[in-house]
C-alpha cells in the first residue's frame, strides 16, 4: 500500500520590523549597542504580533559583536533552532541575512527568525577613522621586520594599510575615479544622490539628518575627504539598531500588519572579485568600475521572474553616493556607465522620479545600520507606511553593499 504524501512548499515572508531611535555618532549613551539590538528585536517581534516565545531563529551578518547565542539566552527564547552569520563582509550581508532567515523558515529548520543589526559607532571604533585592522605603532624606532599575521585579514590589509588606504572612502574613491575616467561621471552626478536622499530624509522623523536640508551648492561646498569623495558623499556614522522578523505565510495569516513576501534573493561574488573589502583593485578590468553585483543581479532577476522595469521602488545600499550609481547600472535600471546621467535626470527622486530610491533617506541621511534599515524601508513601502510612500507600490528591490561580495532581495506585496 502506498501512502500519498502531500507537501506544500513553505514560503517565507516578513511580518515585523522594528528599530530603536537613530542618533548621530555617540548620540546614544544610555544604552549599549547590545541593549539597542535587544530593543530593536523586541520592537520587531511586537510589530509582528508575536512574542519571544514564538521566535526560534536569529540571523545576522559579518562583524557582528552581538552574538546570537547570547541573544537567544537573554531574550529567553524557548529553544534556538537556527542561528547564522553571513560571511559577506560589512554591509554586503544584510540582504543575505534576510535570505538565510527565509531559507531556514522555508526548509522547516525554524518557524520564526529575527534578523538584526545594531551599530553604536560612538561606543566602538569609528569605521572612517583610520586603521582598525593593524595596530598603529607609537613612535620610533620602526619595527625592523615583518610580523606574523594572526588572521587572513591582517595579512591581506598589509597590502593596503601601510600605504594609507585606511578606510572605505579611500578604497571606493579609487573605484569612482576610474568610473569617471571611463564614462565621464561627474561630481554633480554623485551630488544628485546626496541631495535627493537628503530630501527624502526631511520627511522621515527617524532620520538622523532629517532637519538638515542640502542643496547642490551645499554638497559641492563640503570638504574633500578622498577625491572624488566629499564629506557628503560618505554615509553617516551613527548609533542605532533595527530588526526584521521572518516567518511562514501560514503563520503570517495572523500578523497585524500583513505579510510582505520575499519574492527572490541572491548573494555572492563573481570569480576574481577579490577577497574582501580592500581587495577589489584586483578585479577584472570589466568589473572594477562597477558594483561587482552583475552576477547577483542576474540570478536575482531570474529567480524573481521579473526585471528592473517591474520594480516600483528601490532601496540601494549607499555607503557612498557614487556606488549607488554603479548599483543602478549593475541591476539594470540604466546602461553601463549611465548611472550618473540617470541620477541627474531626477530618476531617484520621490514621488515623480522613474525609480524612487532610498525613500527613507538611506545610509547617507536616515541612518547607517549596515543596510538592514533599507530592508525595513522596503517592508514599509509595501505596507504603505513609508514617509515617502510610492502610491500602490507592489515590488521593491533592496540591495546590500556594492564593492564587496554582496546580496539583494526583491520584496513584494501579497
Amino acid at each position, binding site marked *: 500500500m502506498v501512502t500519498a504524501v502531500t507537501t506544500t512548499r513553505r514560503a517565507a515572508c516578513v511580518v515585523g520590523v522594528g528599530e530603536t531611535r537613530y542618533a548621530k555618532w555617540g548620540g546614544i549613551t544610555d544604552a549599549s549597542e547590545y541593549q539597542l539590538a535587544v530593543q530593536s528585536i523586541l520592537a520587531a517581534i511586537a510589530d509582528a504580533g508575536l512574542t519571544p516565545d514564538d521566535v526560534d531563529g536569529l540571523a545576522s551578518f559579518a562583524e557582528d559583536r552581538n552574538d546570537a547565542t547570547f541573544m537567544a539566552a537573554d531574550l529567553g527564547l524557548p529553544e534556538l533552532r537556527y542561528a547564522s552569520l553571513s560571511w559577506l563582509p560589512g554591509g554586503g550581508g544584510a540582504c543575505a541575512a534576510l535570505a538565510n532567515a527565509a531559507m531556514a523558515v522555508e526548509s522547516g529548520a525554524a518557524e520564526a527568525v529575527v534578523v538584526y543589526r545594531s551599530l553604536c559607532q560612538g561606543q566602538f571604533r569609528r569605521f572612517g577613522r583610520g586603521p582598525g585592522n593593524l595596530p598603529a605603532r607609537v613612535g620610533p624606532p620602526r619595527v625592523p621586520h615583518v610580523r606574523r599575521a594572526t588572521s587572513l585579514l591582517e595579512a591581506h590589509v598589509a597590502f593596503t594599510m601601510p600605504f594609507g588606504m585606511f578606510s572605505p572612502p579611500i578604497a571606493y574613491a*579609487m573605484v569612482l575615479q576610474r568610473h569617471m575616467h571611463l564614462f565621464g561621471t561627474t561630481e554633480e552626478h554623485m551630488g544628485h544622490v546626496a541631495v535627493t536622499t537628503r530630501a527624502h530624509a526631511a520627511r522621515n522623523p527617524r532620520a538622523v539628518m532629517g532637519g538638515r536640508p542640502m542643496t547642490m551648492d551645499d554638497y559641492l561646498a563640503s570638504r574633500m575627504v578622498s577625491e572624488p569623495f566629499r564629506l557628503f558623499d560618505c554615509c553617516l556614522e551613527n548609533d542605532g539598531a533595527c530588526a526584521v522578523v521572518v516567518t511562514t505565510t501560514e503563520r503570517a495569516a495572523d500578523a497585524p500588519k500583513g505579510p510582505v513576501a520575499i519574492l527572490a534573493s541572491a548573494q555572492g561574488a563573481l570569480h576574481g572579485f577579490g577577497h574582501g573589502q580592500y581587495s577589489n583593485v584586483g578585479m577584472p578590468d570589466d568589473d572594477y568600475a562597477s558594483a561587482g553585483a552583475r552576477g547577483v543581479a542576474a540570478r536575482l532577476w531570474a529567480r524573481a521572474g521579473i526585471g528592473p522595469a517591474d520594480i516600483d521602488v528601490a532601496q540601494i545600499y549607499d555607503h557612498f553616493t557614487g556606488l549607488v550609481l554603479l548599483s543602478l547600472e549593475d541591476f539594470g535600471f540604466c546602461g553601463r556607465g549611465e548611472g550618473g546621467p540617470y541620477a541627474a535626470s531626477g530618476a531617484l527622486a520621490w514621488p515623480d522620479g522613474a525609480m524612487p530610491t532610498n525613500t527613507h533617506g538611506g545610509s547617507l541621511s536616515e541612518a547607517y545600520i549596515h543596510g538592514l534599515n533599507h530592508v525595513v524601508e522596503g517592508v514599509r513601502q509595501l505596507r504603505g507606511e513609508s514617509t515617502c510612500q510610492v502610491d500602490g507600490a507592489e515590488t521593491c528591490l533592496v540591495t546590500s553593499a556594492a564593492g564587496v561580495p554582496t546580496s539583494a532581495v526583491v520584496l513584494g506585496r501579497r
Partner: protein
Amino acid sequence: MTERWFPDEMPMPAASAETMGWWEAAAEHRLVVQRCAQCGTTRHPPGPLCPHCRSSASQWRQLPGTGRVYTFTVVRQAFIPSLSDRLPYVVAAVELDDSAGARLVSNLVDVDPAEVTLDMAVEVVWEDMGPELALPRFRPAPATTQGRGR
C-alpha cells in the same frame, strides 16, 4: 639611505605563510609577483593556490618595477593624526609591467597630486622601514623608461 614620505605611526605590515616571501623580496628592494609554476597565471596578493588551474606550486617573478596608474585618489583627510602635516597624499593602484595585469596598492610620491592622471607611467622607489622591511612607493617614470615592458 632612502627618503621617508610617511610618518612612523603608519600601520606596519604583517605577513602570512603565503605572503612572507613577497615581503622578504621587498626587504631586498625586489618587486615580485607570485606566478603559478604550472600555468603561469600571476596573482596578487599572494595565495596558497592558483585560482586558474588550482596548482599550489608557485614562483616569485621579479618585475622591472615600472607600471601605470590604474586608478588613484588624493587623500585630504588625516585618518591618523600624524598624517595631518603630510596631506594631501596619493593612494594609487599601479598595474605592474610584465606581471600580466597584477595591480598593487601603493603611493605616488615626488609628484604634485594635481598632476596625477590615469595611465601615467611610474616606477618603484623603496622606502626602508628597517633592515628587514621596505615598502614600495612609486614616482613618475623618466621619459626613457616610459612604455617599456608592457
